[in-house]
């Protein structure tokens, strides 16, 4: 029987947030790319929360934007509310979050995909990976006879698509099952078709697969909600775009509000009384759920002392009545859901549009991947997003982007781009996933980043635009604009250092008028800005020669001066960290030959095969003494 057979450079399986970034990056790097989706209507779908960003996730979005990713641009086009979180805290934890118009978000992303050269969108279920002939190992290589390769995919309808690299971005679709109460549907989110065949192909290839679960709350009809009993949560007056290509003026618009309400003891009593009907407690759900994003029944059972929990009511878009009930995801039966939601102030007459449900899916053990997101055992096979055990749109997009970039670079014969923990949250995310065994869906958190004062959302462009330019995803115009910004920051810092203010009466009076102390000796403007009670704007009257500078330049100048001591100390910590990162472990190391490693360490090291001593030191079960043994073996 004749079958379709096509040839591409890169196949991307799945068009969620990871797949879209992977495909766009690869195609924009000039590679002929095909992007498969089970449904053209679920491209860049947001099946759970209607927002992008948030604590540390916002950092990921800005980071990939700095390197040429799409998520930041897409949310800037389709946001309906924007907020900088944690503004009362230090700049390291300021985090951008925007409410999205979900339908618009999907539509805009699909439009971008369809307008991109070298990119083909195709609705089909990929059911099988095609293994190529073993590539003969180079002469003299001791450890493997040959390298296994993946050379393409087959679809359920029998089509064959050969490629030099395949990127798996299957999200939550592999053998997906949606569950609430005693209802269990073998579908992906929102009743979309699950991908039921690919898992078997992975297992046949010897890839370790595990089962995770996550969940989503109900959507409630806006007209049935009494907002007068809730606290309004407005967007910021001054908005910061996600993408460094946009200014506030470019994207300013009318914003919609979110609303805050709380559960109470009645809610908790309803949950406790019906907990035996939860599929989680009855054992119907086998997958491991995220501790950091628990369902409301988890929260009630685990924190019995808390008499209330926050509930955020968020619009799903401008052209829908559906409201997302943040903080109350659940897999309880339908009748319990009604009772539980209706016990919350403002939701007494709530009408549910979509039920809350839990979803189970297959994913892989990501320690099978290199930091480039390529499988260690299979050349040409990459994975990004929820298939790697992460959760969240932003985590997915970040991995998809890196997988796309590295697959493309591999085909071009270039070294992979690997960001380390001191460069980007993206680096922290991927290092954690490929180094530590993830036993529950992995969520990005600020606490996971050791050097977060350096990894701020405001300086993502300064950290990563050079890399984006090197990859080829930042065009010359944007790069020139960036270089000008960087130069302006440096120049202004230098100028402030050199402008010295004397103890003239006028100056002293001004300092006192803004609550600062008079000068004892002459001081530079930068010294003045460093005073806790002053900042760049406040010293303006003492600085008549100041040129008007863009707000983003001023922001960097101010942060660099005000937190200088902390930044320097964190840089010293990074220098220390890099020492072990720079000690590479050759691929050919045979851990069985290294005497004195403890058995557990030997097993873990053999399994994960870290690329540097630094990475080895982060593997659980490898002790500092094992690291010493390793260092000594490597000739220190």
């Amino acid at each position, binding site marked *: 029987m004749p079958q379709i057979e096509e040839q591409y450079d890169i196949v991307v399986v799945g068009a969620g947030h990871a797949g879209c970034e992977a495909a766009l990056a690869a195609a924009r790097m000039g590679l002929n790319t095909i992007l498969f989706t089970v449904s053209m209507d679920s491209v860049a779908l947001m099946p759970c929360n209607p927002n992008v960003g948030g604590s540390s996730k916002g950092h990921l979005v800005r980071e990939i934007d700095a390197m040429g990713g799409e998520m930041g641009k897409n949310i800037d086009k389709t946001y309906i509310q924007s907020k900088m979180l944690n503004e009362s805290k*230090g700049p390291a934890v300021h985090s951008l979050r925007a409410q999205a118009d979900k339908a618009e978000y999907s539509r805009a992303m699909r439009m971008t995909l369809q307008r991109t050269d070298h990119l083909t969108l195709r609705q089909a279920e990929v059911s099988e990976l095609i293994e190529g002939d073993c590539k003969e190992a180079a002469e003299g290589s001791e450890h493997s006879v040959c390298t296994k390769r993946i050379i393409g995919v087959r679809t359920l309808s029998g089509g064959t698509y050969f490629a030099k690299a395949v990127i798996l971005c299957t999200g939550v679709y592999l053998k997906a099952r949606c569950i609430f109460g005693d209802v269990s549907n073998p579908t992906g989110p929102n009743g979309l078709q699950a991908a039921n065949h690919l898992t078997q192909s992975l297992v046949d290839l010897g890839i370790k697969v595990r089962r995770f679960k996550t969940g989503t709350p109900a959507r409630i009809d806006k007209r049935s909600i009494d907002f007068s009993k809730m606290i309004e949560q407005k967007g910021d007056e001054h908005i910061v775009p996600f993408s460094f290509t946009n200014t506030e003026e470019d994207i300013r618009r009318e914003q919609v509000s979110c609303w805050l309400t709380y559960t109470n003891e009645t809610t908790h009593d309803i949950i406790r009384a019906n907990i035996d009907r939860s599929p989680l407690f009855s054992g119907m759900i086998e997958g491991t759920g995220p501790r950091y994003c628990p369902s409301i029944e988890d929260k009630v059972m685990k924190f019995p002392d808390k008499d209330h929990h926050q509930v955020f009511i968020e619009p799903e878009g401008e052209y829908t009545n559906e409201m997302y009930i943040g903080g109350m995801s659940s897999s309880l039966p339908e009748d319990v859901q009604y009772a539980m939601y209706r016990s919350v102030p403002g939701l007494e007459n709530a009408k549910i549009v979509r039920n809350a449900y839990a979803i189970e899916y297959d994913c892989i053990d990501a320690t099978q991947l290199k930091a480039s997101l390529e499988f260690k055992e299979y050349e040409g096979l990459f994975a990004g997003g929820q298939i790697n055990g992460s959760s969240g749109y932003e985590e997915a997009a970040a991995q998809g982007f890196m997988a796309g970039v590295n697959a493309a670079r591999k085909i071009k014969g270039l070294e992979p781009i690997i960001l380390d923990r001191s460069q980007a949250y993206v680096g922290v995310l991927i290092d954690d996933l490929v180094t530590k065994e993830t036993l529950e869906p992995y969520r990005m958190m600020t606490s996971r980043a050791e050097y977060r004062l350096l990894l701020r959302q405001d300086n993502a462009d300064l950290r990563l635009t050079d890399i984006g330019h090197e990859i080829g995803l930042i065009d010359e115009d944007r790069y020139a604009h960036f270089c000008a910004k960087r130069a302006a920051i440096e120049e202004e810092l230098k100028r402030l250092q050199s402008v010295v203010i004397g103890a003239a009466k006028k100056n002293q009076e001004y300092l006192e008028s803004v609550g600062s102390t008079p000068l004892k000796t002459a001081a530079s403007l930068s010294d003045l800005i460093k005073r806790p009670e002053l900042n760049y704007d406040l010293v303006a009257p003492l600085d008549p020669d100041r040129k008007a500078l863009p707000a983003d330049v001023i922001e960097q100048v101010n942060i660099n001066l005000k937190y200088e001591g902390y930044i320097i100390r964190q840089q010293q910590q990074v220098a220390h960290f890099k020492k072990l990162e720079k000690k590479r472990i050759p691929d050919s190391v045979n851990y069985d030959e290294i005497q004195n490693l403890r058995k557990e360490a030997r097993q873990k090291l053999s399994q994960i095969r870290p690329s540097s001593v630094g990475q080895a030191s982060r593997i659980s079960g490898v002790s500092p003494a094992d690291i010493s043994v390793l260092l000594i073996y490597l000739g220190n």
Partner: protein
Amino acid sequence: MLYKNDTIAAIATGASNAGIGIIRISGEHALEVADRCFRAKNPNKKIITTPGYHAVYGNVTDGDVVMDEAVCLVMRAPNSYTTEDVVEVQCHGGTIQLRQILKVILKNGARVAEPGEFTKRAYLGGRIDITQAESVMDMICAQNELAARSSAAQLQGALSDKIREIRSFVLENVAYIESALDDPENYSLDGFSEELYQQVEATSSEVLKLLGTAEEGKMIREGIRTVILGKPNAGKSSFLNQLLGEERAIVTEIAGTTRDTLEEEVMVQGIPLKIIDTAGIHETVDIVEKLGVEKAKKSLEDADLVVYIVDGSRVLDQDDAYIMKLLQDRKVIILINKIDVEQVVDKSWITANIIAPMIEISAKTGEGLQEFKEELTKMFFHGKLSFNDQVYITNLRHREALSEADLSLKRVLDSIRAGMPEDFLTIDLMAAYEQLGTILGEQPEDDLANEIFSKFCMGK
């Protein structure tokens, strides 16, 4: 150096001519090596078949030549000091004989251990942590009993326990701040900084206390640096000789006989003293004497204790005034010497200038020496130098890490005072945590292990 599990050997007992000497063999082939140069009295017995913690009696042999009678103690991996197979060959002492036996063992497949290599293997084998390893080194190199006691305390993990306690306090607070950043709904930071301030202040003083013991730790290991100071011919050398119980320094009636500093080590009622006798301090034009005076002044800089000897038979003068100026803010014992002759000295002038215990002695007759010893003991045991049940920092690396940790804690306090948001506090808290971790060897370091083990004495 490529670390292989090869077999090493070294003499484990000190270089004295003690009755018994021990040679330790450790490594994968320790048992075979021992069998090649040892013949059991019972011809059926072989070291290789001897179970752990059993001894075999026989002769050390070089080919057919019997070297010595010996007992071989067998310890099997991982139940040995190094976690490897170990044979301890216990034979008759005597440095030369032990060396010859070691040579035979080396001829039969072992190589000579590098300094500290046994302990290094114990550390790498996960048997001991780094503080314990360093204590072993200090113990081997310890110069006196008190130092040995302090080393023993560290080895038992008293220091480790203390550091662990401080570290877990730091980590708990970092964890709390981070939880609050990621989950503000469930973790509040209201009033957190104020509370943390008190706690960090207390922790910092704990660290300072440990650091304070570093000074004492140094004294214990090296002896208390005691400088004898006074005008020429005040009787400094005579006093030293009384203390030493023998005439070692040259004593004459001509002023300025001791032209250089002399160092002597002596135990006074169990307290180790390192005594530095100095040239008399006086205005002089003699170039040699001038150098001596400069040296005396220099030795004051790192003195733990100064014994100021005043000639009671002479009137105080400009030189005494100069010396008393040098002694400000130092720990001093004043000795009024020569009480066997007529006294003219104005003691009130001295007490008006220095606050210190004053004892009348005669270095010639030995009168007052007992009182001096008692005063010294009192200062040591009842003063700041009490050492009972205390943990001492006797190691320079620990001391540096503690200083760094304390600096970081002080920065946390600065940040709280400056009203910085809590997430800034974690930077310096983590720095303190990591610094303390390096003391325990719980912070992966690229060069730490080698640095430490290269300092070890041979054979342990």
